[in-house]
């Protein structure tokens, strides 16, 4: 127990010492010039900078993540036995994800595995669909809309996002429920005789998820396309390029960082969405985040929940890395 406290305080201290040692070394070898950190900022402000960023980087970001990963490799124990002889590292929580409870007869834990791959697969599909939906509008806003129209479009786009995620999902429930307006219209026009169960078939969930993060796709795209010089498009057209050549060989390559950034954001938010599955999912809906939630607050098995959360985190990291690799970009280029 005291060992982990030493780590919690020792790690930030060691890193801060390392930074100042590095700074001193660079000044001595002539890589860096000018005064030291406290000389440059003054003592009070220098202290504020180091403490604020140190607290943020370690106590809010890094140490909690490490604590979660650490917990995911531990058995579920009552508080009195924590740190005791039974508190040994184990892969039990990950084994459970793959094979289920030791008492179950099934070979694999299909319920959780299916939910996981469905979540990842559907998130990828929704990301691609959102890209396809948003690209024409982003291009129009960035390249051909007048200033006045642009203002109106931006306002219309931002308006739905003042309303929080749960209410946005709720709107889809009102819209698609069996007595909802869509079903009324379908029945009124004679296309169906009885209401279609959109929510039970997860159509509502997928629509709600796609809807929830449209803005996260359109703004990075818009920013990236906006910086493209209009003359390039003009020149290509004058030289006789068909419209799809202009998009494929001029606009898309230029907008690469924006596309990557929009796709990563939408994927991450969709795969990690909790509100839409809770509101729009039926009892048989498979989505990974509610399962993680239930590990904590239904099963009260925190280490297992931590393991599930870590699995989700690792897959998100892999997705980001694959996107960066595919687009040949660095992280700094997509988080602007």
């Amino acid at each position, binding site marked *: 127990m005291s060992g982990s406290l030493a780590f919690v305080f020792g790690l930030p201290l060691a890193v801060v010492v390392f930074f100042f040692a590095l700074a001193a070394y660079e000044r001595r070898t002539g890589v860096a010039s000018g005064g030291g950190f406290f000389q440059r900022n003054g003592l009070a402000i220098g202290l504020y900078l180091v403490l604020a960023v140190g607290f943020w980087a370690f106590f809010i970001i890094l140490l909690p993540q490490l604590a979660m990963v650490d917990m995911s490799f531990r058995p579920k124990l009552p508080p009195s036995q924590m740190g005791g002889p039974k508190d040994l590292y184990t892969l039990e929580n990950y084994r459970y994800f793959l094979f289920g409870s030791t008492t179950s007869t099934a070979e694999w834990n299909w319920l959780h595995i299916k939910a996981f791959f469905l979540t990842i697969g559907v998130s990828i599909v929704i990301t691609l669909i959102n890209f396809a939906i948003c690209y024409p509008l982003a291009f129009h806003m960035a390249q051909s809309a007048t200033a006045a129209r642009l203002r109106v479009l931006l306002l219309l786009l931002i308006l739905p996002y003042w309303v929080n995620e749960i209410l946005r999902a709720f709107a889809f429930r009102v819209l698609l429920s069996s007595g909802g307006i869509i079903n009324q219209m379908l029945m009124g026009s004679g296309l169906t005789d009885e209401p279609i169960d959109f929510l039970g078939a997860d159509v509502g969930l997928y629509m709600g998820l796609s809807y929830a993060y449209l803005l996260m796709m359109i703004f990075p795209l818009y920013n990236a396309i906006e910086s493209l010089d209009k003359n390039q498009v003009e020149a290509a057209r004058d030289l006789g390029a068909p419209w799809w050549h202009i998009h494929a060989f001029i606009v898309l390559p230029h907008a690469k960082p924006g596309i990557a950034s929009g796709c990563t954001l939408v994927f991450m938010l969709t795969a990690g969405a909790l509100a839409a599955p809770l*509101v729009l999912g039926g009892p048989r809906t498979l989505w990974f985040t509610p399962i993680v939630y239930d590990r904590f607050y239904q099963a009260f098995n925190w280490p297992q929940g931590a393991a599930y959360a870590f699995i989700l985190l690792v897959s998100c990291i892999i997705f980001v890395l694959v996107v960066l690799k595919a687009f040949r970009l660095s992280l700094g280029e997509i988080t602007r």
Partner: protein
Amino acid sequence: MNPGPFQRVMFALYAVVFFLYLLGPLAVMAVSAFNTPQYPQVWPIEGVTLDWFSALFADQDMMAGLKMSLWIGLLVVCISVPIGLAGAIIMTQIQPRVRSLYYLVVVSPVLTPGIIIGISTVVFWRQFTGQTGTRFLYDGVVLTVLGQASFISAYCMLIILARLQRFDRSQEEAALDLGASYPQVFRHILLPFLKPALASAAVLAFLSSFENYNTTTFAILSDKTLTTVLAGRVRQGSTPAISALAVVIVAVTVIGAIAYEIYKRRSDAAAAARQRAALEAEEAELSGTPAPAMG
């Protein structure tokens, strides 16, 4: 683009469908807030009522949650903006060879799913407060503020950094040469320059905190914010009072946006008038007392 009539029509059609998709669900929900049936219903309109709004304001849990959300939002602003500012300043000063590592660490919360941030915050602080004897810190409000601050500080940092990169360091050097101390430079030169970025960071921080659900639902423990109360209500069943809440939120933000726009135009006009007056005064001065070289 120089679209032909066919392309024009196709694009218009696409734009109509897009905005129908974007705004339609909200419009439908808004209508159901004024309709009388118990279950949110759009058509037929059986009678126009404001009962759902009074039901909303009579809902004690919802109002308590609202108060809690406003309180947490303010605390998050007070923590995230200073942290974001410090993060941005450090970014411009850190050694180039470790800059990308630093960037990776502080931007990672933006790319981490919200529930993971909530979970890790609870797990860490439960252990930490237990071991250091500061159990009173293991509290829903404290944890929620800390969890939300992880990614909201990163948003703030990115906003402030964008402006900081346009800062002219020679201003700072001039002030130092004229005898200003470091805290004075910080207060009288750097902060005023960053003021617009700090203001937009504060607004964004408050809004992100106010509407956050994924991180909050884990970190809030036994307390309740507006979003967690709302999630509970929605799970229990649909009532038009929930639609009424959406109408209130949209109305408040639209009024806020319009007020801001008016304020912005007025201050822009005032600034332009000042500039014009200054130019005129300068011209008058130049023509009234000609420079010696010209005379």
